[in-house]
């Protein structure tokens, strides 16, 4: 427009300026116009003056007058065209806010055509005049046509977008913004437009485009003045995506929003920057600053920024709401640890923040999902304390319980459900929670408690939603309590009440099982037959029922029928534990009937038909054993080797080591007598190990470090069986020296770790154990890793770490091989941590365990004495003395403990004021030659010398 005014002045300039000057006074008198027909050049000169003086309201009637006289036939001065006069007229009307007149003149100009630049200017005025009269629908096509003008393209796109948006033409607006953003320079206006486009995409649920737009803006955050707007859009998009189930996308959106302090800081910095820019614009200004575009734009931006800051300040719990969203998104995405951090952050908000209850509930769930059940309980208790009676508390308890149940964390589940009575009173969740509690108690073997819970349920909810479950669980708990007769009646009652109920099939099976338990084998057989007849052939419990039927037939002593039922069970899909049971039962019955070949053939068929099943290792084990029993040793060795070979190169097949141990036993067996009765020639260890190598290292496997390591392991086992201790140690050292830990399977890593630890190579041992727990946490040998790490930690003085590791060996790995070591390790760790009561309880268990009788017993008895001694007091000391004496009297085989026990016994006597007895004890100790080389002997001499009694029984007393 400025250009238009200038161009008008330019055209009129030299000629009309002189006229205007001459008539200056007259032009100032409006009334003269009515009476005097002033020449057009003179009028135009006045127009020029008015425009130059920025008085468009004065110029407008003059130009209307000019247009009227031209329309009446008067000619314009030379050099001036009608289109330019129309443009000037439209411009000044626009400037004077007479948009209707501006529209009319501009429309005439556009309709009449003319030079492109002039028409384009006319279109701009027309479009804007329409928009300012809120005729947005009409303005849209005008700006659309204006896009063809390179000089006005970006502005036209912006105004078309704005007008379309106002006209409710969202699609048009989106298209216009997209075109604008594709071509416009990246500046603050661009950022503003991008924000609007994102909001439109959100309005139209174009989430992908909105996310792209926000990501683009995030990359050019420096251009965005309205940071609060950007934040709000990010939150809106995140909410929309989360509602759509796109948690990942929601997180990406939420991450673009920043917390309030950061937002305030950024916004303040933005304002400061604007102030600087405004100052610079002022410095550069040549004319009145207020009219400079740069100044106006900057001031406008600053105003918007300040408004944004105010908006942010008004949101009291802005951060809490942000983190609550982030927490939910992480929770939906499966990021339980992250969700806990986010919810925890919400809980740092003021106590009256509305988001706190939801955050508490989220935190409980997040901890449960992350298996952090200690924290789950703490969070739940905090929530209950802060918001007693809040229904979300019980809901959180229910959610956490479901999470624990889904993870099979039975102990933790019970810990949570112990709160049901305290927290769930009157809640709708109490009903399912009671059922859940009963299920958990049943699974934990607390059958009486489970039964009591269901009795409570039936009392409180006689027609409850879970009545059927309650009745059935009640009966099952009775059955598991061993009340078979009662269970039979209760299950019968269930079947009568719910003949088509959810548990009918299971009830039939349990009835048969109850009769089997009562040794009513005939009834059990009849009931299993009825079950097999009545239930569909693909029922998942069919295998279980057939196995029970096999048991019942076996109970009746009818092994043919039992074997037939077990074989039938094998044809069904069985869970691994039941499959193992059925295979073992069949093996047992076949062996009892001396049907060795049938048993071996069964396992051979299994290994052939299910080559990848983990029980193939069991198959090899049994085939080897049975063939040896049949006297077919070589055939057994060949079959076991053949199966072992399949997996020899795969370190993840941890059962191979069990086979190798079996194979070592077979290979190391002394040869049978020859037919003549003469003793067989003994076979050298070298010959056996060569045979092992030949069996297990065909050329194809020579390149496999795992296979080679396994052959060495086999040779080490053979050496151990032949009591060749040094040779075994040398082979284990070879495993340590020649093989990467990555190549070694967990079974070898565990034994290698133990070997290295025993010879004092602690760090190398630790690496073996770490490799097990990091790479094979689910291996049957995982307890080697955990227990080994416990030993290393304990030896390094880190008793607390050791306690965790030993606990993991038992709780995580199931301690298949290292239960004694792990149990002893826990007790030792507790003793080292001075937790005497806990240590005592475990040492007592160990000392009482007949299966572990041996060195573990000696150590436990000694440790129990040690605990009593630490407690002090005459009575404890007397009891401690009894323990130490028991060690050196009853466990003389275990010299390290005997030596320690003598020393402690002497100390105890001293503490009891019985120094002569103490000295006698030490003398007795020194008479035992086995102890002479031990450090305790030197200590005994030192003490005797200290007490003034250098002569000992062993040395001439």
């Amino acid at each position, binding site marked *: 427009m*400025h250009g238009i005014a200038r161009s008008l002045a330019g055209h009129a300039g030299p000629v009309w300026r002189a006229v205007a000057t001459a008539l200056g006074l007259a032009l100032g008198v409006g009334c003269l116009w009515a009476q005097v027909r002033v020449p057009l050049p003179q009028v135009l000169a006045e127009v020029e003056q008015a425009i130059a003086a920025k008085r468009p309201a004065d110029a407008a009637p003059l130009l209307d007058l000019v247009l009227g006289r031209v329309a009446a036939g008067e000619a314009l001065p030379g050099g001036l065209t009608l289109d330019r006069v129309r443009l000037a007229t439209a411009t000044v009307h626009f400037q004077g806010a007479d948009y209707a007149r501006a529209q009319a003149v501009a429309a005439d100009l556009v309709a009449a055509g003319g030079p492109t630049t002039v028409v384009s200017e006319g279109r701009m005025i027309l479009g804007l005049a329409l928009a300012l009269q809120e005729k947005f629908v009409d303005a849209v096509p005008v700006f659309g046509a204006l896009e063809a003008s390179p000089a006005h393209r970006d502005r036209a796109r912006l105004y078309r977008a704005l007008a379309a948006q106002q006209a409710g033409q969202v699609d048009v607006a989106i298209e216009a913004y997209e075109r604008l953003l594709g071509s416009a320079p990246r500046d603050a206006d661009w950022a503003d437009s991008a924000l609007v486009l994102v909001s439109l995409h959100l309005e139209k649920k174009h989430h992908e485009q909105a996310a792209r737009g926000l990501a683009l803006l995030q990359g050019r955050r420096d251009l965005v003045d309205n940071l609060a707007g950007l934040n709000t859009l990010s939150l809106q998009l995140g909410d929309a995506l989360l509602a759509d189930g796109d948690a990942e996308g929601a997180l990406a959106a939420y991450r673009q929003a920043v917390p309030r302090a950061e937002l305030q800081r950024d916004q303040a910095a933005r304002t400061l920057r604007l102030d*600087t820019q405004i100052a610079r614009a002022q410095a550069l200004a040549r004319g009145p600053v207020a009219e400079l575009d740069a100044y106006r734009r900057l001031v406008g931006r600053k105003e918007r920024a300040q408004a944004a800051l105010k908006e942010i300040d008004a949101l009291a719990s802005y951060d809490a709401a942000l983190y609550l969203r982030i927490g939910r998104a992480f929770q939906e995405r499966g990021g339980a640890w*992250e969700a806990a951090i986010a919810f925890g952050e919400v809980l740092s908000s003021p106590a009256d923040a509305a988001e706190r209850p939801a955050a508490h509930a989220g935190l409980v769930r997040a901890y449960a999902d992350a298996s952090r059940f200690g924290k789950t309980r703490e969070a739940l208790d905090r929530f209950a304390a802060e918001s007693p009676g809040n229904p979300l508390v019980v809901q959180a308890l229910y959610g956490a319980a479901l999470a624990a149940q889904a993870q099979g964390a039975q102990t933790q589940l019970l810990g949570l459900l112990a709160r049901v009575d305290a927290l769930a009173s009157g809640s709708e969740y109490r009903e399912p929670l009671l059922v859940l509690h009963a299920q958990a108690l049943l699974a934990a073997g607390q059958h009486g408690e489970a039964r009591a819970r269901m009795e409570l349920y039936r009392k409180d909810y006689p027609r409850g939603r879970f009545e059927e479950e309650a009745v059935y669980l009640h009966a099952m708990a009775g059955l598991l309590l061993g009340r078979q007769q009662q269970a039979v009646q209760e299950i019968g009652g269930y079947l009568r009440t719910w003949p088509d109920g959810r548990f009918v099939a299971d009830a039939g099976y349990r009835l048969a099982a109850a009769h089997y338990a009562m040794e009513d084998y005939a009834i059990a057989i009849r009931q299993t037959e009825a079950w097999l007849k009545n239930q569909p052939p693909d029922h998942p419990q069919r295998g279980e029922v057939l196995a029970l039927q096999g048991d019942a037939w076996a109970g009746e002593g009818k092994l043919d029928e039992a074997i037939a039922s077990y074989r039938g069970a094998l044809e069904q899909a069985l869970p691994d534990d039941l499959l193992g049971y059925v295979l073992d039962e069949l093996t047992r019955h076949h062996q009892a009937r001396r049907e060795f070949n049938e048993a071996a053939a069964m396992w051979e068929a299994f290994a052939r038909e299910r080559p990848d099943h983990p029980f193939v290792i069991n198959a090899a084990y049994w085939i080897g054993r049975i063939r040896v029993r049949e006297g077919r040793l070589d055939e057994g060795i060949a079959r076991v080797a053949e199966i072992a070979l399949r997996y020899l190169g795969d370190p993840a097949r941890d059962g191979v080591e069990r086979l190798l141990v079996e194979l070592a036993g077979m290979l190391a067996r002394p040869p049978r007598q020859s037919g003549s009765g003469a003793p067989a020639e003994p076979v050298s260890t070298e010959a056996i190990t060569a045979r092992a190598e030949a069996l297990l290292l065909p050329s194809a496997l020579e390149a496999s470090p795992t296979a080679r390591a396994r052959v060495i392991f086999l040779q080490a086992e053979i050496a151990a069986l032949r009591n060749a201790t040094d040779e075994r140690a040398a082979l284990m050292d070879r495993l340590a020296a020649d093989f990467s*830990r990555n190549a070694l399977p967990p079974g070898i890593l565990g034994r290698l770790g133990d070997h290295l630890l025993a010879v004092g190579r602690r760090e190398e041992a*630790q690496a073996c154990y770490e490799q097990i*727990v990091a790479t094979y946490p689910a291996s049957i040998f995982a307890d080697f890793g955990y227990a080994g790490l416990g030993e290393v930690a304990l030896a390094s003085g880190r008793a607390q770490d050791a306690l965790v590791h030993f606990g993991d060996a038992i709780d995580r790995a199931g301690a298949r091989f290292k239960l004694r070591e792990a149990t002893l390790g826990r007790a030792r760790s507790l003793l080292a941590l001075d937790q005497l009561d806990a240590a005592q309880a475990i040492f007592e268990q160990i000392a009482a365990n007949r299966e572990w009788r041996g060195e573990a017993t000696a150590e436990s008895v000694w440790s129990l004495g040690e605990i009593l001694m630490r407690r002090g007091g005459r009575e404890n000391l007397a009891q401690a003395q009894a323990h130490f004496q028991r060690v050196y009297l009853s466990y003389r085989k275990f010299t390290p403990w005997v030596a320690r026990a003598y020393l402690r016994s002497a100390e105890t006597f001293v503490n009891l004021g019985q120094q002569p007895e103490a000295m006698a004890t030490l003398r007795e100790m020194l008479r035992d030659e086995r102890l002479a080389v031990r450090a305790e002997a030197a200590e005994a001499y030192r003490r005797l010398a200290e007490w003034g009694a250098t002569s000992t029984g062993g040395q001439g007393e």
Partner: protein
Amino acid sequence: MNLHRLTIILLLLMVVGSLGAQQQYHLRDGTILNADDVVVRGVELVETVDSDSVGAVVERTYPLSEAVRLDWPEPEAFELAREALATGRGAEVSALLEPVRAEFVLFAKVPGSWWTAASLLRLRSLLESGASTAAEAAARELIATAIDPEAVGLARLGLAELEVAAGHGDIAAAMVNAILAEEVPAGVHARSWLVRGELALQRGDAEAALEAFLRIPVLYGNRRELLASALDGSRRAYLLARDTGRADRAAAELQRDFPLSPEAARLGTVGSISLPSS
């Protein structure tokens, strides 16, 4: 968008003009000097004013100490340096940024100078490449020179990181605690969680490590430059906690979102976990 806005835009149309990115010195007395019009000579800014009647050049000089702010767009070298750092080419960073540091070193304490940002980026590259001696010198230079509290805090954290790398966890922990005992900017807090995570890993405390590393994606998710380290730290912490499922997921996320990062590159070579040292 409303009529008020349309009116403003209309007014904007009336005058053409925009201000391009400029390089300027702002002096204490309000004078603004375009960088193109002056040269730095010794401790002065020298502006050529005109030639006198006999053709001799007339110069006006300003002490450098009069400069109170620089208004300079970010040098292009930064983008390249950031990319190099993010893609494991940290060795290139120093070469890219030395010219920037040299250009701005005389204005190191002047707001708007790019010396501090360049020095920080260089420090990060030295820390990540394990050049501990050079990193320590760079950190100390920043602490002595920079005026931006965030830069000083990050440099102090850099020294703590060096102690972590040297296995001196107790010293590093004390340093981090000392830094955080003061009021520090959010950027320092954010990075301190990475250091605290590493310290927890060294102690074998998986839970504390996870609590530290995962604060980055949760509370500082918009600080992309920290996310790869945080993801990798959480992966190692999950392994320590024997949660291989979540460790694998963190590894997959690292490879998906930061495939060129040094952390992702190292994934292939990780064979075992770090457990409590004996």
